[in-house]
């Protein structure tokens, strides 16, 4: 038996949450200095699933790099590939047919709903309620089926091409999406009754882990995390890309900054995404889905290019520095959860471990996207 540990009464101890821990939903490690159940200091340690996606972007041609983007965030992959194709199209001056842009918007929003649904289930599971996860997964399953029909894959999509799409949507896709929207609205009502109105749920989240707008700006937090803290910023509205300026939708913003506000933002966003999908299906123009004027080997002009898109987790930016070759000279990905996660260290000081892990759940972390 090892020697007994001598502890002073005021001494703290180190608790390793992760790399393998049910609450981190991946291989994130949080080194916590604990005083009983209270966190004195926390330090997030990254790098367990680093795959050098940025370096790969410098070694591969732009087209070869396309599948890499969908391996960042396995829950909302379409948003990330969308960012890449948009940046290349803008830099190389490739025209995209309107129909393709509409289909892109519809599929990205479907993917956003799927991502938020999965987050919803996992978040409630973090709080100890297991059943909502199953309901959410069932609804998400419909989206995955719809997207599988047009993209061919269920999770790591590579559907967009420079100048258009891989294939056109069929009537089945449109019918299934039209069927899905009212069903999803019904489910949202059910979630509101089962989870949002629950008193235990409210007590766990209300006023817990308030993040000020100031802190969000300091760490560069975006997406639902920033919008839950009263920052009215959504790339789709503020710097409209693709055909988002054609759609009528609201950006849900809550001022409280607590875990409940972040939860509400995401639940409201599902409804807004459904609105966008509805409008997109109604306006969907006929025409080609792929531009004809496209060089076979895409070479960007010399320069520095940046494109931001709003993914399910926040603002995703891709910066490409080109020296005129067929691959990037330098490539940098700005992933939203990387910035969002760093709120955690500062905010969770002095919190109970229980609330801190609920807070971590409300940040919607996807580790492979953070580590890239």
């Amino acid at each position, binding site marked *: 038996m090892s020697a007994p540990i001598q502890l002073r009464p005021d001494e703290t101890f180190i608790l390793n949450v992760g790399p393998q821990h049910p609450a981190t939903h991946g291989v994130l490690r949080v080194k916590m200095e604990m005083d009983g159940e209270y966190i004195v200091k926390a330090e997030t340690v990254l790098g367990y699933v680093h795959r050098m996606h940025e370096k790969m972007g410098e070694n591969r041609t732009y087209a070869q790099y396309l599948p890499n983007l969908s391996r960042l965030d396995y829950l909302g992959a379409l948003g990330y590939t969308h960012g890449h194709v948009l940046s290349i199209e803008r830099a190389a001056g490739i025209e995209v047919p309107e129909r393709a842009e509409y289909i892109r918007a519809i599929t990205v929003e479907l993917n956003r709903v799927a991502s938020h649904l999965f987050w919803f289930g996992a978040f409630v599971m973090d709080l100890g309620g297991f059943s909502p996860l199953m309901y959410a997964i069932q609804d998400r399953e419909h989206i995955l089926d719809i997207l599988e029909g047009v993209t061919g894959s269920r999770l790591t999509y590579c559907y967009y091409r420079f100048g258009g799409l891989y294939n056109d949507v069929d009537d089945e896709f449109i019918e299934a999406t039209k069927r899905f929207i009212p069903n999803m609205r019904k489910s949202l009502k059910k979630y509101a009754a089962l989870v949002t109105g629950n008193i235990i749920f409210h007590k766990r989240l209300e006023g817990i882990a308030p993040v000020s707008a100031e802190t969000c700006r300091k760490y560069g937090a975006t997406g639902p995390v920033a919008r839950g803290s009263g920052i009215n910023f959504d790339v789709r509205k503020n710097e409209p890309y693709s055909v988002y300026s054609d759609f009528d939708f609201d950006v849900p913003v809550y001022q409280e900054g607590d875990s409940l506000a972040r939860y509400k933002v995401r639940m409201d966003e599902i409804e807004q995404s459904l609105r966008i999908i509805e409008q997109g299906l109604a306006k969907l123009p006929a025409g080609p889905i792929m531009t004809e004027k496209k060089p076979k080997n895409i070479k960007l002009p010399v320069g520095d290019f940046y494109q931001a898109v709003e993914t399910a987790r926040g603002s995703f930016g891709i910066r490409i520095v080109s020296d005129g070759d067929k691959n990037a000279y330098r490539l940098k990905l700005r992933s939203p959860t990387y910035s969002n996660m760093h709120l955690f260290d500062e905010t969770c000081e002095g919190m*109970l471990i229980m609330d801190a892990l609920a807070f971590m759940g409300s940040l919607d972390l996807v580790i492979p996207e953070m580590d890239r």
Partner: protein
Amino acid sequence: MSLTLLNVIVAVVIAIAFAAANAAYLVWAERRGAARIQRRPGPNINGPFGLLQPPIDGIKLMTKQLMIPGGADKILFMVAPVLAMAPAIMSFVTIPFSENIVARNMDIGVLMIFAFASMGAMAILLAGWGSRNKYSVMASVRAVSQNVSYEIPMLITAITVIMVNGSMDLKAINLAQAGGFWHWNIFPSLQSPLMPVSFIIFFICSLAETNRAPFDLGEAESELVAGFHTEYGSMGFGLFFMAEYANIVIGASLTTLLFLGGWGCPFGLFPGVWWFLLKIYLLIATFIWIRWTFPRTTIYGLLNLSWKILIPISLFNLLLTAGFMKVF
């Protein structure tokens, strides 16, 4: 009744068999119930309706190697699971299933069950301390403070019932409630007008005492990995698991005996063990239903609920009952 060695052995064997069978098949029932709530099939491969799943799980647990982590306190580590299971089985000895089916009826049956139930907290503490794992220690401290604070309102509520019925003998308490549901303790009487409140307090406390969701802070799996039994594998874990379900059965039995008329029929027809079993399994189904519906509470919310709400109400109820008994 002469107490022979044979009698004792038969009684204990039946108690163990009942506890073990209940533990095994309640796991099955819980998994099927959870599956029904979550719209999935649940265990349905082994045997009809998956009924062979519990024995197969048991064999799996028994054939696994019992690992003792390095640095753990060996004796405490081995003792804790046994200490969790033994009091649960002992409590079965004094529970009357019907007028005649009782292993050993005692004048102080209620007291004995509470005495054994409070030993369960010790098992959790030893398990957490003995494993020398930070998560386990934190979880066991939580579980013990929870058990201690919920035993108080539970006992006070039990005292109220005992005062009204004038006995600590579970059999006598039940005979006092015989003859139809309007005689049950759950309904307000002239002597104790707040009986429904007592029932709700008792039910909440028995949920908390058995460490069940939404009060499962001792094994909060999303925070503390698996709580106090993180380091246990094999039958060590199996015993904790069985003890949890045995405690659920005891909690449901006690609630039935104290409030729901035990083996009595709601309409005064055919009283017997079947009514008792029906009532406890209905209560257990409610336990399962609650577990798969609600998220977990926080530890401070839980302790606040006990010390600031349940204990004052149950004390007030006790005083009120004492006063009314004096007047009427």
